[in-house]
């Protein structure tokens, strides 16, 4: 069924060179070897949540190369192609270099000065606050902002403007993992980390194409497997066979949405065959169910699991796996000397995302595969600073900095005191979560929003619905970004931001690890670091709203130069005042310490002395985690002191199978799932501008199982319409034994309107985490035409 090269060329040769996207061609072959006069600058990769350490080579004020840092325990020197090339964005001719403004969205943008831009931004927010109240303004940030940026933005919104309408795109990717960790372990973020990968004897990878979405971690797992082919087992559970499956001993291909059954069936095997860890359960666990977290007995749990026999569940999973497959993987999981589970969006972006997280965590609690070497329940994070910035520094509507819930008065007061703002200044009610925020733009309840470093017009599910609201003139939109996006198209005011290595700040990756990137080159034109933009905006807001408390929020940062002193002062305030005494204590991770460490610091790290050892590799373990020692209440080696569980226990949850929000029917007979491809990052505004990366995957495809393709009469390269109840796409087909029969899969990076798959996906969300179910919806598939020449597209 393969399309021949000649066929492809025939269809594409008709296009002239001039009609192609104007890619900026590389002018030099990159060199990672130093020459005299070159300088190498400390930082991390700009892209995924792995957090690879890099050094940027600078020659005559311009970047010329990048290299991995061999001493860093994140990546040991390795980089994927995105890490190798992202720095090409630094000098790109498409960069936004001046503030741009238009009063109405039908008008063309005009270049304006920073003075005018900051005034317009302050007036827009102040006017809305005066006429519609504080909750009519909102901030929507990103897991790609520096921690200092997220922290300062949310401080101005909460302490200054008195609203908790603070959100960010991590709501779309890891909110379910947060909910899962808090409800299972009583504390957010993983107990262990990457160092477990080289010690693990079993990997359970579910709902993650690690090979493409977290490439350098995948290489570590690959190496562990290939070096120990007989003693290390890799289980890959996913409705789609992917590159990750290449190292798997067993691929469990389950029907989309049957994951809860599969995980319960594994638990049932562990119980029935007595593979659980009796001592671990007796010392550390309780069983709970329902909205009230009611405690139940072990026998009630056993009874709950009765329907999940491997035989019954193999059928529910769609018939591609057998009961014996389920038994075998459950035994591998339980019996190994150390098991690490890894998951990502396939589990999180589900309407039962929190429950699915709980059921993975259950397997670790039952078997005691936690807290010891080579064992962890490790949620992979998509973005480079979703954990450090958004999860830890108060970037979501229901959390304040330092893992503090907004709806807890004591916690709010601690923050108010730290900021020196009046007690009661921060509203008690959490703000609007992401989907609610954009629904409120549609309804006119939110009248001004600041979108920072993300493109919701492309990345929200069912995006057409929300674009309608953003297009209207009754919501004033400010965007800070480095390139035009589908969202800057809808803005009134575009503010040019400094890029990675053009400013200084901290990223915190998947494993509780904070690392610093130092400014190495100047930003182009008038582009500015966001921390400068927010500070200057806040000063003007204070005048326009005649509110000295807003001015007070940035008083300590006034007059500091923005390349180093300003972010350092913000980091110091956040870490010293707001992480002190919290589980995410980062007081030891000062800028000077971060600048000395090969690979940053893992919290908790209460003192510089602790931080200089690298911090805490395993939470909750006495002798490894300083808080486990200082908060110890008994002689047991593990102390689960997390803030969410007063009983200091791990909770095994009774969570029943529940269907996705939309399942195929006669009218929409296929499942659609979406995901990432290795060469591109999110909405492609960066990676699409690097010729090497663009050419590797210039546009989105739809993957169709060969059996389905045969029934539908679809040949490779044919143009196929995917239609849901919400919208449609027209995509070239890849015929591939990836997705299981009855399911198609599409990439989500393409900016071209007819290939933006989030016009098709569904916007229902998990009632607990409020994370939408991007991964599953029902669609029709129809062959529209034979292969057509396709142009890559970038705004």
């Amino acid at each position, binding site marked *: 069924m393969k399309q021949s090269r000649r066929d492809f*060329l025939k269809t594409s040769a008709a296009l002239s060179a001039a009609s192609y996207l104007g890619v900026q061609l*590389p002018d030099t*072959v990159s*060199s990672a*070897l130093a020459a005299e006069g070159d300088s190498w600058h400390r930082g991390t990769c700009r892209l995924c949540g792995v957090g690879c350490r890099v050094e940027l080579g600078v020659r005559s004020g311009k970047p010329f190369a990048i290299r991995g840092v061999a001493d860093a325990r994140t990546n040991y020197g390795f980089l994927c*192609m995105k890490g190798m090339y992202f720095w090409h964005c630094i000098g790109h001719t498409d960069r936004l270099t001046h503030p741009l403004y238009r009063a109405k969205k039908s008008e063309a943008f005009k270049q304006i000065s920073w003075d005018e831009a900051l005034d317009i931004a302050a007036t827009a927010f102040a006017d809305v606050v005066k006429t519609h109240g504080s909750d009519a303004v909102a901030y929507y940030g990103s897991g790609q902002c520096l921690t200092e940026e997220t922290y300062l933005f949310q401080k101005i919104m909460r302490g200054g403007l008195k609203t908790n309408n603070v959100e960010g795109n991590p709501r779309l990717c890891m909110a379910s993992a947060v909910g899962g960790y808090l409800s299972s372990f009583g504390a957010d973020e993983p107990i262990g980390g990457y160092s477990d990968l080289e010690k693990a004897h079993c990997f359970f990878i579910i709902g993650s194409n690690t090979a493409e979405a977290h490439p350098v971690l995948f*290489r570590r797992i690959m190496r562990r497997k290939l070096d120990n082919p007989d003693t290390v087992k890799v289980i890959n559970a996913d409705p789609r066979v992917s590159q990750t499956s290449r190292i798997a001993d067993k691929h469990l291909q389950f029907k989309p949405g049957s994951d809860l059954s599969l995980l319960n069936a594994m638990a049932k095997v562990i119980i029935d065959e007595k593979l659980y860890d009796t001592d671990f359960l007796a010392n550390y666990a309780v069983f709970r169910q329902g909205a009230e977290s009611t405690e139940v007995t072990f026998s009630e749990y056993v009874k709950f699991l009765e329907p999940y026999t491997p035989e019954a569940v193999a059928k529910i999973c769609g018939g591609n796996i057998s009961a014996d497959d389920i038994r075998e993987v459950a035994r591998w999981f339980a019996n190994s000397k150390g098991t690490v589970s890894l998951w990502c969006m396939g589990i999180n972006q589900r309407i039962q995302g929190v429950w699915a997280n709980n059921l993975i965590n259950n397997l670790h609690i039952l078997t005691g595969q936690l807290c010891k070497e080579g064992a962890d329940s490790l949620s992979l994070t998509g973005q480079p600073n979703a954990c450090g910035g958004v999860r830890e520094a108060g970037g979501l509507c229901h959390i304040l900095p330092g893992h503090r819930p907004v709806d807890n008065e004591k916690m709010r007061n601690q923050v108010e005191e730290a900021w020196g703002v009046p007690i009661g200044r921060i509203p008690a009610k959490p703000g609007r979560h992401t989907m609610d925020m954009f629904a409120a733009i549609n309804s006119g309840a939110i009248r001004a929003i600041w979108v920072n470093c993300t493109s919701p017009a492309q990345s929200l599910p069912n995006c057409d619905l929300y674009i309608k609201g953003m297009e209207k003139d009754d919501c004033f939109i400010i965007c800070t970004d480095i390139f035009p996006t589908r969202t800057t198209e809808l803005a009134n005011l575009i503010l040019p931001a400094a890029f990675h290595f053009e400013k200084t700040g901290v990223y915190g990756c998947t494993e509780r690890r904070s690392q610093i990137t130092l400014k190495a080159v100047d930003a182009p034109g008038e582009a500015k670091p966001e921390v400068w933009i927010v500070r200057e905006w806040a000063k003007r807001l204070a005048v326009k709203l005649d509110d000295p408390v807003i001015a007070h929020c940035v008083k300590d940062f006034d007059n500091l130069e923005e390349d180093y002193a300003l972010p350092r002062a913000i980091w110091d305030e956040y870490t010293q005042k707001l992480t002190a005494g919290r589980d995410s204590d980062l007081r030891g991770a000062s800028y000077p310490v971060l600048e000395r460490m090969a690979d940053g610091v893992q919290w908790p790290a209460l003192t510089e002395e602790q931080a200089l050892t690298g911090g805490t590799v395993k939470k909750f373990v006495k002798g490894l985690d300083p808080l486990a020692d200082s908060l110890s209440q008994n002689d047991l080696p593990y102390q689960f002191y997390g803030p969410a569980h007063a009983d200091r226990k791990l909770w095994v949850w009774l969570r029943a199978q529940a269907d996705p929000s939309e399942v195929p029917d006669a009218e929409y007979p296929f499942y659609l799932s979406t995901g990432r491809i290795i*060469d591109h990052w999110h909405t492609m505004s960066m990676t699409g501008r690097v010729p090497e990366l663009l050419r*590797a995957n210039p546009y989105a495809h739809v993957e169709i199982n060969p059996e389905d393709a045969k029934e539908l009469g679809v040949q490779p390269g044919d143009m196929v319409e995917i239609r849901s109840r919400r919208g449609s796409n027209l995509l070239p087909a890849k015929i591939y034994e990836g997705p299981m029969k009855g399911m198609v899969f599409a990439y989500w990076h393409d900016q071209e309107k007819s290939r933006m798959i989030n016009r098709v996906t569904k916007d229902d969300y998990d009632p607990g985490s409020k994370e939408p179910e991007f991964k599953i919806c029902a669609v029709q598939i129809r062959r529209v035409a034979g292969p057509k020449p396709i142009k890559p597209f970038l705004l």
Partner: protein
Amino acid sequence: MLALQAAEQEQHPELEPGEQYIPCAQCHQEVTPELYTEWNASLHGIGMVACYQCHGTFENFRVTPLAQDCAACHADRMDAYSQDQPCWSCHVPHSFKAEGASAHKKEISENEKPAQ
């Protein structure tokens, strides 16, 4: 055929703009199947290190990668490496298996460096 010409010219044969958007491996699976198979089975293939990461793209294409290309990921090996031998004299292209005695001045233990 393509590879042969390229080896002679040290540059990639002219491609139409449309052809430039075909991933390298898609063509080379057909035109140089033995190289593709070797790469695909190697650590680079399983770990998804793509052709362009070593050979560049059209405008900066090189048949034989430079030591600098290796250095983006293997900078430490460069430091520990005898400069008089190119990587390819020991590491077989596309399978990357080392032949003969190591030319690296210092070897790095498995535990220190888990993911080579």
